Structure formats: C-alpha cells, structure tokens
C-alpha cells in the first residue's frame, strides 16, 4: 500500500515538472519583433582659432553640426547649424555648443584662452630737472603787515633757500614781491618792491650772486588768495621765488 502511494507521488511530480517545463519552453521560443528604425544621432564640432589671444584681440569661432535642429552656444545663444563668428572676450572662455536633434543631442566645446597683454615697458626713469628741484627745495618768505623786513621765523626759509641756491649755482631766479589787498595800489607796489629787495639782500648777503636774481613787485595785483581774512592776507604778503628758465 505504501509503495503504491510513493509511485503515484513520483508520477505526479514528473508530470508536473514536464507540464511546467513544457509550458515555459514554449513561451521563450517565438522570435523578437523587429525594432523601429533608429534616427541618426546629431554630430557637432566647434573650434576657435586662434585658441589664445590677448585682451582686446579677437578670435574666430567655427562650428559644424549635422542632424541637429536646435543649435546653441552658451553665452551666444541660438546659432545656425554651421557658421562662424568673431569673438573677443576679455577673459578666457569655454564655448559650449549644444546640438539637439531628433536623434539626440551632442555637445562640443572649444576653449579660448585670453592673456593679458604684457605691461608697457616702464617709462624711462624721470630725470629730475633743476626746475623740479627748485620747486621742491626753495621756500617763499612771508612778511608782516606793511613790513618788508625778514621775520625771525622766516630765517629758516632763507637758510634753506641759500643752501639750495649755493649748491645749484647755475640756477637764475626771480623774486616776486606780493602784498595783501589792504591799502592803496601804488603804495603796495612800492612795498612789494621792498619785500622783493629784502629777500634779495638776505640771499646775496649769504653768498648768492646778485647777478642770478631778478626782482619784480606785483603789489596787490596778483594775489595768491582772494578772501578778505588774515589767513589769506598772510598768504599774499610774501616774497615768491620763481625759477627762471
């Protein structure tokens, strides 16, 4: 009885296996359906010539695509499928071209390197002229109201002037006598004359050759400062030393 049941079990198992295997094997058997025809993929290329420029120069960007309906370059925008364009970026730029078509999209890049022009050659070292030195070293001499004698606090200016002028004996110069706006025209011209002479005397007595010196009075005709206050007037009461070319 027991053996009988095992036989039946084996039979069912074999049959089941066979049935199963048969069904599965039948399903894999039919050939696959033919695939639809694939559209051609776009192609794209971009180049820049020359690939390196200096700031301010320009380069030509050239690109070709095929099978693309939509071509654009970053930073430029939509472009024709094939073309070229002149560019002159100020900084190094990577031109990124995207060609889109039904067959997909294709990208291409070209890099333009922009270099800074070499700095201009440094100007030749300035030669310091006598006139520059005169302007840097010679000091004007200021006066008290209605006075033409050299003030004690102006002696340092005189000494600086003497030191420079004695060291540059080739320089000729003019001493202009100036006055503030107060008082009368003629008297101020005479006063300015005395101021110019006072500075000249101070310089010549310290060894500056008188033949190098011209004096002129401007009175109150050519003020440095035109406000009516003491600060301005002091600016105008002076012996002004001017380099003579």
């Amino acid at each position, binding site marked *: 009885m027991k053996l009988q049941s095992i036989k039946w079990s084996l039979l069912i198992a074999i049959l089941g296996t066979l049935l199963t295997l048969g069904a599965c094997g039948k399903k894999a058997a039919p050939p696959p359906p033919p695939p639809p025809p694939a559209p051609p993929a776009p192609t794209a290329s971009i180049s820049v010539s020359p690939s390196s420029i200096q700031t301010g120069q320009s380069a030509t960007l050239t690109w070709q695509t095929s099978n693309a309906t939509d071509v654009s370059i970053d930073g430029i925008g939509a472009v024709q499928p094939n073309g070229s364009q002149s560019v002159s970026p100020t900084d190094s730029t990577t031109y990124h071209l995207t060609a889109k078509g039904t067959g997909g999209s294709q990208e291409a890049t070209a890099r333009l390197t922009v270099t800074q022009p070499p700095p201009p050659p440094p100007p030749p070292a300035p030669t310091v002229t006598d006139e520059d030195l005169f302007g840097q070293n010679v000091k004007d001499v200021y006066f008290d109201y209605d006075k033409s004698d050299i003030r004690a606090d102006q002696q340092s200016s005189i000494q600086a002037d003497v030191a420079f002028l004695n060291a540059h004996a080739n320089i000729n110069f003019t001493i202009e006598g100036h006055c503030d706006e107060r008082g009368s025209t003629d008297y101020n*011209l*005479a006063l300015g004359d005395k101021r110019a002479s006072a500075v000249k005397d101070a310089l010549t007595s310290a060894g500056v050759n008188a033949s190098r010196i011209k004096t002129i009075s401007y009175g109150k005709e050519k003020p440095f400062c035109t406000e009516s206050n003491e600060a301005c007037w002091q600016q105008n009461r002076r012996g002004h030393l001017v380099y003579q070319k």
Partner: protein
Amino acid sequence: MDESARPTSRRWPGRFRGPVIASVLLILLVLCLLLSALSAQDWVKTGTSLGVEKVRLAVPDFKPSNNDPQNAALLTTFNNTLWNDLDVSGVVELVSKSFYPLQVPGQPPEVNFLMWNVPPPNAAMLAFGNLGVAAGQLTVQGWLYDVKNTQSPQILGKQYQDTASDAAARMMAHKFADEIIFRLGGGITGIAETQIYFVSDRTGHKEIWAMDYDGSNQRQLTHLGSIALAPRVSPDGSRVAFSSLTKSGWEIMMYSLDLNRTVSFPHMGGTNLSPAWSGDGTKLAFSSSRAGTPEIYVSDASGGNLHRMTTAKGPDVSPVWNRKTNAQIAFVSGRTGLPQIYTMEADGTNQQRMTDQGYAVSPNWAPNGQFLSFAWVRKYGPGEPGASDLYLMDIASKQWVQLTHDGGRNDFPSWSPDGRHIVFQSSRSGKEEIWTMLADGTKVQQLTFTGRNTQPNWSWK
C-alpha cells in the same frame, strides 16, 4: 528833553502822569534819534561862495525847431546833458521842472516873464532854446535870460552848428552849460568839456581808459594786455603818462592822445610808478626803485635829466606837483611805518610830514595850490573801525576836513580844473568804481558801472 516834557505833563491829572510822561518821553526820544540821524548827514562844507544864495535857474527842455526825425533822440541827449552839467556844477539852484508852466519857450518871443519870475517857479534866470537837424546839420540856439529884468533880459545868446550826431549834441550842451556857469558862477571856467582818465579791467586786463567828465563816451586807450596803472594826463592834454608792467618790470609809459598810440619813453630799471606832471608840463615826478628802494625822482617830460629827490629808506611813492606854483611836491612815504603824506620843495629840500597818524595815501593838489586832498584811514590797526575816506587839508595850517562819509574804500581823489569838483575811486557800490562830487562832498555821482574802474585823473582843462 526832560525840560520840554515837563510842561506837557502838567496838563494831565496825576493818575495819568506816569504812563503819559513815559509815552511822551518815548516819542521825544524817537524824535531825538531821528534828528541826530538827520544832523549826522550835515557834514562840514568847504569851498568858495559859502553862504551865498545860489541863483534859481529854470531850464525847460529845448524845443525842436523843425520836424526832422532825428530831433527827438538828439533833444533827449542835449537836454539831459545840459541839465546834468548845470546840476553838478553846484553854481545854480535848478528849479524843479514840476513848477514850470505848460507852455515853455523855444524862442525869445515865446518867453512869458510872468510865468517864470513869480512863484511857483520863482526863477531868477531862464535858459531855453531850440534844436533842429536840417540837411545833416545840427543847429542849437540857446539863450540865458534874467527873467526879473524884463526890460533887458538877455544875458547870453548862442548858436552852435555841427554835423548831426549824438556826440555833437552832447558837446553843444557842454559848451552852453559852460557859458551859463561862467556867467552865473562869477567867472568860473566850466568843466563840461573836460576828460577823466582812469584804469579799467573790463577787458580782462587793466588798461588806460578815458571818458567825458560826466561818464559818457567811455573809450579804451591802451591795448597792452598787461597791467597799466596810474594814468596822469599832461597839462596840455596831449599825452597820458602811466605805469605799466613790461618784460623788464614796471616802467613809466607814455600815450600820445594826438597819435592815439604809446610813444617811447626811456626805461629806468627797477620798479617805476605813479608819474605826475608839473604844472608847466616840462617835468615828470615819479617813484623809482632803480637804485634800491622806491624813491621820488624828477625827470624832463622826455625822461631825461633824471634827479633823485628823496633818500629815506621807506618806500616813497605817488608824487604830485603843486600845479599852481610848481615849487612843491607832495608824496607818500612809509619811512616811519604806515604811509603818510609829505611835502617837499621841488628840489627835494624841506621834507615835511603832513599827516600825523593812520594810513594816508594818494595826495592830489587842488588847482589853487592851497589844499591837498588824499585818502586816509585815520584810525588804523587791529580792531579799529577804520575806513578809507577822502580828506582835504589846508597846507599852511594842516587843518583838515573829511569829504566822504558814505562807506566803502575811497581813494585816488583828483581835482577838476575849476577846483570845485573831485573825481575819486570808491567801493561803496560793492566794487571799485569812479565817482565825482563837489569838493564839499555833495552832488555825488557814479560815472562807471562796468568792471572795476580805478585811479581816475581829471584833465587840466
């Protein structure tokens, strides 16, 4: 004030007294202030004919003598010029036009004496006439009538003729005014034809200019493009000496009014300033620093024969001859500090200080040789409210009177040839302009208005 208030207060009952006295006192105080303000205008008067009542002169507008279309404009010029000349002369009292009768004469037969010699016009004299252009010729007829003397009224009858122009109309008015002033002013030579030379910066550079004495006809003489200062016309009116900044410094330059150009004058070297003519026109005095400090020199009118007159250390400038005697020179010196007025003999001897304090400059000798006018800041120094005003000093006594009181910086007085007017520079209008006045400080008139105009010099005739 209290005494005049007292009787007023008695009329009022006691209870009103306090406030009434207070208000009366207040009113009197205000009156006093007003009166003192008014009397402050009552400056000292100097000059000739003081206290003499002036002749009342009526000057109705001249009438057109025909229908020429040019008449209207020329009449305006003539009438305005004549009126102004007579007004500023100070010789006559012009009767206000509002008192004139409606019918004014243009010819002697049209004079109705009874309409002029009684109030309201109450004129003693009547100047009238007519003007007309015919065939391009301007003719002016003018009369001066003594309207109180109906039997023999005519004092003056004049006829002028010239090519019709605004300048001709003005000149005829000047000539007629001078005739009237000569007769009514006791022989005073009129100044209506005189000129004033001055410095103007209206072109951008200080150049020498000229104008008629009343400010009309302003014209540029020099075109140096530098700085030209201190013009002084020669006594004969042929040349103007001035000082100009040249390449070699300040030099005396000479402008010929005959040739209308600068003519040569020797360069002196140094700073050369403020030339002045002697009364006979043969010499020039000026300041030169050719030998160091600015000193007074005298040369021939040609610049030759140079003599140094001063030796003081201080700057000596602005010489001016006593034009009456030619024996004295007044000048400015800073030898003791601030500039003062000095006089000396024409040979440099007998140098005398005339001003005792302050800042005194720009002397100018009156034609009579007795007075100096000059600009003076009497109280000078920090904190002093000093103004530069014009003063008049009697040389013999050193007595002075102040002529200007009207503010601004007043400088460079110059006398008219009749000795009755002074032209000067003043900043009272805000910037330096040229003004005239009678020598007593009245009849002040501004002559220039464009740019800055300075250092006027009145012609000698």
